[in-house]
């Protein structure tokens, strides 16, 4: 069970900030494929992953990052801090 979080327009498009996901996905990319297969709103949010960033256990990483032992995955657009 992984906590999956969404921020900014990803959160708005999917319609919730956080959910628990039961998954056997080995990588972030596989998790994304599972989510896209669920419903149109997920497919829309993840249509172009080059426009997205991902953090695993609160560290920025890539979509090929492994999920073994991971507790929290977050998807969001490029950050606009400062």
């Amino acid at each position, binding site marked *: 069970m992984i906590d999956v*979080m969404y*921020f*900014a*327009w990803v*959160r708005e498009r999917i319609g919730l900030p956080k959910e628990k996901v039961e998954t056997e996905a080995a990588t972030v990319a596989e998790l994304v494929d599972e989510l896209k297969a669920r419903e149109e709103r997920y497919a829309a949010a993840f249509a172009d992953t080059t426009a997205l960033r991902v*953090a695993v256990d*609160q*560290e*920025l990483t890539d979509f090929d990052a492994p999920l073994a032992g991971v507790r929290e995955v*977050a998807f*969001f*657009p*490029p*950050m*606009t*801090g*400062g």
Partner: protein
Amino acid sequence: MKVRVQSAAFDFGAEANAFAAGRKDAGAVVTFTGIVRDLARGDLDRMEIEHYPGMTEKAIEAIARQAQERWALKDVLVIHRHGVLEPGDMIMMVATAAPHRVDAFAAAEFLMDYLKSRAPFWKKEVTANGAQWVESRDEDEAALTRWSE
């Protein structure tokens, strides 16, 4: 090193004074302050800043630690707000103290470049006609490359 992520307003002048006061070890203090800028049409109602609680503090602290490893700094301060802000409100500030100005300036610019693109904040501009997420700019991403040379 002090990092604060908060929704409350902060007093830039008071923070800057407290940071710089009586430093006999650092001849140079640089501050940067980010302010909510109105849109070209002058119709910005408010800016909403979303962040990722938990990761935000960790990311900023990691960036500040990198700055401290890289330059001879005596101190670093980062304050960043989230929530609802109005035009003219201060969004965030960084301050760096160093024996020499070159280090204080470089570290402040480094912190800003990384906060801009690597700290989990997202800005949304709201006007009477609707809301829009601020898009990241290619030049902000490009600004990071100068630090990896």
